[in-house]
């Protein structure tokens, strides 16, 4: 079992577990299209954040939801491929890709249709369908949600660093789906079904927080080149934002993305839950690279969620 799993199993939900870096830093980098030098950009981000990569087992977790290669639903496979190459170039012992889609069961067929086989070298060798992986029971000490335990795939605990690679999208229930919500994909459909409805019954926002806490060693790289606005995460429309947003503290990354999308982080419940339970506040986050103001562009919200708009 790798470091992530060991920590998850032994952590005791103290403020230490929730503790955020004193001054969490998030990188905002412009990338106008997927033909930009994304490998170079991601490599520089990892070096800038001094991410320990050499000799480590890396697990990339993109967001794969639908068959479409055109609609901005899935993390773009070119972005995933670039992340893979960046980690490899920095000496990672292994880089695997894993996802457990939440609506449809034929993961590899979906990955093929979405362009992963053509964009990512030796994709099938590197990829683990988390919906068909063997599982282990994880107890949640002091959970925020109604969950007391979860069965999770072995693969997500057999790594040194879990890298969340979400698409920057609005979400018609949670407000925004970014690096933290992306971890819903590690919950196995083989146990909980398609969708993983137990997460809805146990509290969507609360489960986002509980899953975040299970993986203390994370890095987040958000595909904000072409995002989704409106009735996300599936029925929305394309929104060009032209950015990569990255950092080692997912709540800080997500709060920064919200501001870029002109969504008020104060009104995103999973972020306020993190703030309530820790020494973190989204105002304490510093950004490097571009300023939020220079890249911010209002993502259209579902009409019912207009109250989330950042004033």
């Amino acid at each position, binding site marked *: 079992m790798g470091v992530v799993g060991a920590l998850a199993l032994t952590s005791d939900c103290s403020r230490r577990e929730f503790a955020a870096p004193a001054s969490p830093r998030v990188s905002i980098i412009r990338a106008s299209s997927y033909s930009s030098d994304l490998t170079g950009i991601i490599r520089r981000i990892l070096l800038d954040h001094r991410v320990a990569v050499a000799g480590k087992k890396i697990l990339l977790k993109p967001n794969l939801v639908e068959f479409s290669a055109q609609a901005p639903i899935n993390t773009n496979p070119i972005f995933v491929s670039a992340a893979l190459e960046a980690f490899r170039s920095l000496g990672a012992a292994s880089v695997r890709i894993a996802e457990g889609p939440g609506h449809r*069961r*034929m993961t590899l067929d979906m990955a093929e249709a979405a362009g992963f086989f053509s964009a990512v070298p030796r994709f099938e060798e590197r990829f683990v369908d988390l919906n068909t992986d*063997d599982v282990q029971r994880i107890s949640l000490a002091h959970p925020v949600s109604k969950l007391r335990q979860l069965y999770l795939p072995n693969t997500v605990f057999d790594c040194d660093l879990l890298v969340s690679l979400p698409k920057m999208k609005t979400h018609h229930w949670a407000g925004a789906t970014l690096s933290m919500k992306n971890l819903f994909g590690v919950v196995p459909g083989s146990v909980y*079904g398609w969708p993983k409805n*137990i997460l809805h019954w146990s509290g969507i926002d609360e489960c986002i927080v509980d899953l975040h806490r299970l993986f203390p060693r994370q890095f987040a790289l958000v595909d904000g080149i072409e995002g989704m606005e409106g009735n996300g995460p599936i*029925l929305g429309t394309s929104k060009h934002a032209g950015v990569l947003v990255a950092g080692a503290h997912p709540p800080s990354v997500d709060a920064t993305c919200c501001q870029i999308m002109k969504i008020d982080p104060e009104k995103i419940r999973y972020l306020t839950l993190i703030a309530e339970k820790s020494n973190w506040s989204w105002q304490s986050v510093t950004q490097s690279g571009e300023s939020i103001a220079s890249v911010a562009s209002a993502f259209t919200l579902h009409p019912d969620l207009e109250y989330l708009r950042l004033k």
Partner: protein
Amino acid sequence: MTYAEKLSMSLLSARNADGGWPLRHGHSWTEPTALALLALQANNDSTEIRSRAAAWIANQQSPDGGWPPCAAVPTSTWVSSLALLSLAREKAYSSGCPRGLQWLMRQMCPDVSTLQGYLQHFLGISPARAPGGSPWFPGTSAWVIPTSFSILAFSCWAKRLPDHGLPEIAVRAQDYLLSHRCPDGGWNHGGSLQRSETSPSYGETTGLALLALAHCRSPALAGSLRLAREFLRHPDSPEGLAWLVMGLAAHGQDTAEIRPLVSLKTTRDIALQLIACAALRGHNPFLLSAV
């Protein structure tokens, strides 16, 4: 060697030493083992492999009557339907099935009372747990796939266990399916809630729901069948192709032959291809009565 023979070889080579099948790699799970057993039945296999598969499934039954997804997860789930279907023609291993059916019936989402229904209608709210359907996991909402498998299991066992009220409960579950169609006439995972009303349907769930509605002759299904034929022209996965063939064949519709596919990734893919091949010969184990 025929396509079906090649599929059978693939299926047998994926088997674990304990007599069960993995989802893809690793330990044996209930779902792929049940599907593999149904595939063996569909192809009239009578070897020890079939009886070991049946024994593996029978041995997994939980004290509460249901079946867990795998040995590592001690909670009974939707896979109980598949276990019941797969043991229906294995008389030596089916003694626990009446208890399994009782467990499955207990998971059905209850009807709302007249007053509750009126209030929900008046207030414009959807019931959190639509009545008549089955959940994937106990205590959660009903969805299209587990409800479809429940209907197939209840229908399969109805003649063998006439005192269990299975036809009535199957009809309620069919009503659930009919009320959870997408605007295009097909089915997706069941996400027709607020803010997802316009979600499109999927080929695989449309095919499976049509199979579960094999005995339903509602004229309302004409649009669903038309859509299924459209999906069948360009199936997006082997699983989708298999369910569409089975769903259309169950309604007496002409379907294309199962074409050899190279991209069979999972035990489920292989088993469903074998079952669909048999369904085209008029022998679909999902539609047979328990012996």
